[in-house]
């Protein structure tokens, strides 16, 4: 039954018979409650939004379970001011900005990195912070700024590069940190009280770093169950099934439904690295405002590589933030509304002409809804 090589084959985690059985189990458990309204589960991971949409899981669970998308897309939650700063740095002579691909289309108050590049700014799309380091080594005359975007999964990779850069005295590499932490964002959403959740799908690869104990505060302080999920469709369906079971049982707990990737304590090496290079700071999240202690700033020892200290950037004038244009990404991110409830959705705001980042990033709630949601499109 379990062939020795099968566990390495992604197709084994997409087997339709098991998917059907899990979907049936989810529906049956959800329907067995006295309440008629659907169970509300929120995921905090762009990769989960993507997988749910790609495999049609959302539609398959209606009407018993409603899946909401929280602020799990690091590009989506980047504040206008940070995007404006990135554009300003990229437009300075002698400066090259290195960024993950998802970021280039995000609109700031006036422009995007993509548009700035068309106007002559030096912008490099990279797959890894290591590539930014390579660029800095190859081009000593350039000041290379790596845009540090991402949560606990990506931040350690940038930390590793910073530690190496400092050790080798690579003076022309700096990082503009926009890294953010997931637990404070979850708390902010739960404190806001709009989402009315029955459970949380835990981000699988963030948890690979943090360990599943990081989510124990959810049952302990909020009475909410959390199932940490992988990214293959069977992983997600299994996690949702476990979550629904816990929600219906009324016994909130953390379930590790991604045991091959996640442990209780997480990646200690990565956590230690984070601690050496970064310290918690306040951070502005699009749609949530400033969330205390939710960001990562470079420690003073890394001042020579901290783009926030190295560059004095003029405040951009004359542009309008997405919210000023009518964008309701914030409410989408807080789980207060679904994308189609935003008046700009599908009209003034489409993947081709995005207003807010939720439509720009392919994994953003609005873009995913637009591409895969079908039925709800105007």
């Amino acid at each position, binding site marked *: 039954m379990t062939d020795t090589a099968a566990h390495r084959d*992604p197709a084994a985690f997409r087997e339709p018979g098991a*998917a059907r059985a899990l979907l049936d189990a989810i529906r049956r458990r959800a329907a067995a409650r006295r309440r008629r309204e659907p169970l509300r589960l929120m995921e905090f991971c762009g990769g989960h939004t993507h997988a749910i949409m790609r495999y049609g899981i959302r539609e*398959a669970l209606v009407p018993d379970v409603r899946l909401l998308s929280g602020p799990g897309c690091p590009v989506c939650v980047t504040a206008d001011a940070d995007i404006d700063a990135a554009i300003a740095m990229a437009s300075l002579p002698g400066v090259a900005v290195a960024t993950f691909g*998802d970021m280039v289309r995000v609109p700031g108050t006036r422009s995007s990195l993509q548009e700035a590049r068309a106007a002559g700014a030096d912008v490099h799309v990279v*797959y890894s912070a290591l590539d930014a380091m390579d660029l800095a080594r190859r081009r000593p005359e350039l000041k290379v700024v790596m845009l540090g975007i*991402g949560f606990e999964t990506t931040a350690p990779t940038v930390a590793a590069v910073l530690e190496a850069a400092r050790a080798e005295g690579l003076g022309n590499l700096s990082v503009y940190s926009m890294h953010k932490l997931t637990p404070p964002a979850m708390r902010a959403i739960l404190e806001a009280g709009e989402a009315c959740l029955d459970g949380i799908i835990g981000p699988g690869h963030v948890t690979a770093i943090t360990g599943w104990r990081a989510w124990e505060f959810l049952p302990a302080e909020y009475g909410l169950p959390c199932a940490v999920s992988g990214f293959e*469709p069977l992983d997600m369906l299994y996690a949702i099934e476990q979550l629904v079971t816990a929600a219906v049982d009324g016994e909130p707990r953390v379930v590790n439904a991604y045991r091959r990737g996640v442990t209780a304590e997480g990646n200690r090496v990565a956590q230690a690295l984070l601690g050496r290079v970064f310290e918690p700071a306040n951070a502005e999240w699009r749609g949530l405002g400033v969330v205390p202690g939710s960001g990562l700033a470079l420690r003073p020892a890394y001042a020579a590589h901290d783009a926030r200290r190295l560059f004095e950037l003029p405040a951009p004038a004359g542009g309008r933030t997405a919210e000023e244009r009518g964008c309701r990404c914030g409410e989408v991110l807080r789980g207060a509304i679904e994308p189609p409830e935003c008046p700009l959705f599908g009209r003034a705001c489409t993947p081709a002409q995005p207003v807010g980042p939720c439509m720009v990033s392919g*994994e953003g709630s609005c873009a995913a809804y637009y591409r*895969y949601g079908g039925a709800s499109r105007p």
Partner: protein
Amino acid sequence: MSDDIILLAHGSGGLLSQELVEQVFLPHLGRPAGALEDATEIALGPGRVVMTTDGYVVRPIAFPGGDIGKLAVCGTVNDLAMRGARPLYLTAAFIIEEGLPLEELDRIVASMAAAAAQAGVRVVAGDTKVVERGGVDRLFITTAGVGVVPEGVCISAAGARPGDVVLVSGAMGDHGLAIMTQREGLRFQSPLRSDCAPLNGLVADMLAAGGGAIHVLRDPTRGGLATALNELAAASEVSIAIDEDAVPVHDAVRVASELLGLDPLYVANEGKLVAIVAPEAAEAVLAAMRAQPLGAEAAAIGDVRAAERSRVVLRTPLGTHRLLDMLAGEQLPRIC
């Protein structure tokens, strides 16, 4: 020739221009019988005449499986073949960045000649311009192509009918992923090669097997299979239902796509076609495709349905369904 580079003078029409034509273009692309004229006389024979034009700006200009020259010839030939035409003549205009090594230009023109020979077409007219460094990215090629559609063949994007079967000639995503893995910052080692190839031979075999039952042909280039299907569904005012499991994708393409967060259904192909055929001819056409080297992995992937609003629906490996939308903007490698 090994140290020589293209200079602005090569494009100015004087001695150096002539040398370039004599030493690079004519030896590979063929010398005319008489004098070099400003315009070439061509004979087309009976049938409806079709024409096409294309610009090629791919970066890098040489990649595993081909180069910009091969791409230019195959792309133009394929545009003609997708109307069921027999491609006959091509033209090629080169806009070259000064500093391009002559050796590289020579290799690319040789590549074009080889592709043209494989397709059975002749490049009958050309032009060269040279611009300053930075004026273009190394080399751009613009082509025109002309061909003849045989009697009784009527292939159009608007030709799909409810009940028709959708076929693809092979695996999706090879070309685009091969190019992307060569780009700066995304370096991989992989067996990925562009599938760049002229499809007119395959189309001729398909027409011999299916004739008028072949309603639509389209090569899924920029935007990939998903984009092509959406365009066809809109043009024919129908819906198309595709089974994701039935679409062939090479393992290496799958892995590279997953690493970069891309979807092979949206990645460009340069040696594949989509055919929409009447159901009674589907088996025969598929067999004819599989008998050809460029169609060895051909597969039936879905069907056409009547619909109020034209759309493309995908049945996922789980058995659920989702809408396969048009590509909005460039597919970007993502980390999330």
